[in-house]
């Protein structure tokens, strides 16, 4: 029982992170109907900036301000000047630009800060006794913090989408960019803002996940698997659905924790293979995902 609880907790923790990355992808997909494969590397870059500032004596919480701001600016600028000009051509061109950003940002981070792993401080410091005993399992405070952050992000995003004028415009563009433009919406501006918001969410997710998930340090290859899991989570939930991203992320996190925990006969971790199976099954059976309404493929 306590082993089950322990796995459930670690699954929820990882799942919350996947869900946050999935949210970033969903926000982009809702506006420009594409997957930003460079989302993880944008986040990686801003997390390096945050780490670099802590090396200069900044408080870790304080570094989030410029880091998240940079995430917004970088993604918005990338959308405006790199993605939008090639959008009309075809999706291959968009994908290639995203892959270029992917390699470029990763390389740039390595160029500036070196390829050795960095110790990134925890946002919530924990000691040996910073946990709640829960039926024999240990619920560490940082797990609570990760889940709470997800709740906060989802809450804020839902609030923006459903209660503000900007959100109304974002929902209109998500439904049909052309009709939205006929309503007088500056669609390009909404694209930029959406990408920027995704950049903020992604940067926040990265800052939270680096100390919590293995390997626990900030390294160049760190975000790639997170992006894969985030993508699978978003696809599972439905690429245009906020609710889907959350459900997809949490079920993926818990599912992987259980499979890797109990499925020891597989001999070690098979997370990525499971991700492959999930992608193929979702695409085969329910291409819209669990809660999505729009397919990735544009006819």
């Amino acid at each position, binding site marked *: 029982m306590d082993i089950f609880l322990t796995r459930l907790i670690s699954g929820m923790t990882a799942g919350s992170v996947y869900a946050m990355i999935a949210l970033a992808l969903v926000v982009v997909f809702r506006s420009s109907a*594409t*997957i930003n494969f460079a989302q993880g590397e944008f986040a990686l870059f801003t997390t390096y900036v945050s780490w670099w500032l802590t090396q200069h004596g900044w408080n870790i919480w304080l570094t989030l301000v410029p880091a998240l701001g940079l995430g917004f600016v970088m993604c918005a600028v990338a959308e405006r000047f*790199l993605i939008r*000009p*090639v959008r009309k*051509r075809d*999706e*291959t*061109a968009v*994908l*290639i*630009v995203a*892959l*270029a*950003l*992917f*390699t*470029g*940002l*990763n*390389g*740039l*981070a*390595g*160029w500036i800060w*070196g*390829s050795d792993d960095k110790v990134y401080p925890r946002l919530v410091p924990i000691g040996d006794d910073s946990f709640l005993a829960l039926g024999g399992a240990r619920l560490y405070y940082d797990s609570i913090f990760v889940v709470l952050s997800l709740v906060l992000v989802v809450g804020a995003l839902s609030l923006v989408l459903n209660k503000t004028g900007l959100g109304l415009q974002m929902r209109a563009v998500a439904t049909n960019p052309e009709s939205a433009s006929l309503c007088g919406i500056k669609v390009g501006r909404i694209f930029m803002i959406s990408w920027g918001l995704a950049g903020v969410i992604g940067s926040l997710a990265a800052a939270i996940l680096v100390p919590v998930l293995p390997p626990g340090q900030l390294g160049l290859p760190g975000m*790639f*698997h997170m992006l*894969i899991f985030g*993508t*699978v989570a978003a*696809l599972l939930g439905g690429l245009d659905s906020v609710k889907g991203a959350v459900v997809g992320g949490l079920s993926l996190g818990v599912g992987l924790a259980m499979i890797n925990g109990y499925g020891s006969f*597989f*001999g*070690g*971790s*098979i*997370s*990525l*293979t499971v*991700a*492959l199976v999930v*992608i*193929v099954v979702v*695409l*085969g059976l329910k*291409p819209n995902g669990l809660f999505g309404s729009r*397919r*990735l*493929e*544009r006819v």
Partner: protein
Amino acid sequence: MTTVQSPTPTPTPERPARPAARSGPRVVVRGSGAHRAAQAVVLVLLAAVVIWGGSLDPFGQGQLTRAAIFALAIMGLNFTTGYVGLLSVGHSAFLGLGAYTTGILVVNYNQTAISTIPWAMLVCFLVGLLVGIPALRIRGLYLAMVTLALGVAFPEVVARLDGLTGGAEGMTIRRTLLRPPDWSGFTLGEKDAWLYWLTIVLLVVTFVVVRNVISSRYGLAMHAVRQDEVAASASGINVAAIKLVSFGVSGAITGLAGSLFAMYIGSLFAEGSFTVLAGITLLIGLVLGGERTLAGPIIGGLAVVLIPYYTSGIGQGQASAVLFAVVLIAVIFLAPEGVAGGVARLARRWVVVVDKRPESIGRGR
């Protein structure tokens, strides 16, 4: 939209492609003496480069071998991603599959290295067919995700099957097992030179085969499927068969490259050589060299091997990644048809090759 008849679509906003209005370009008729002579010059130049490569020091030759292997792998990718438009990010899996097929057959089953090539190609062809199945229903980014997952899962699967593959420890092919066959005349000490020539020969053969396929009816059907599946199937093209077979053939070509790669590198680490990052590298090479061009994969192969080597001293070894990004974006914005296509376009300002019969279906480039 470009029409199906034109294998090299040149997006010209205003006027049709033939720049007859300008005084500049010389018109050369395909198959004429001048055209033949030009072709001969190019062939001689290429032969000279190849022979020069054969006389290089072992390290330089090794780099050329590596570039040729990547050119082959990219050629395979071009076959499906370029010509049929089925985007694949995970071709690293085929590279790895070919490499491990050769590795396993040589190490565990005592086969000679060269005899494993057909098996590597066959295995990759079959897996390619399998991967092609999702492509029947989906395309674009969706397909990219399936292939991404394939590329991501491959190293993990290899690690799981450790009885066969050596798992995470990797697999080492002893040098003596890679002895050149007796009939080749190469000794064990000349293994690297043997591999160089073997790779060049296979690259040339594949090049010729791909060239002929692309200009055949089958190639025309591939173009048609890329541009408009509905119209293609309405014209009597079996779209499903085209997609499946081209994915299979694509896998087989990249698998061939993988097999050669195993012989080249001698020790296989799935986590090192065959991650999805390698798949992305192949895609970068293709786009940079030029999709749907014959020379593109060769340029791409040279680029993805030589650029990282020559820039390894700059920017803590990360300069090549940044450079690739910049070049890639420049290519997408300035020359969407890649370096090969861009050069061809520039060349058309000076020389235009036309078919003898203007009404014939265009096979030229």
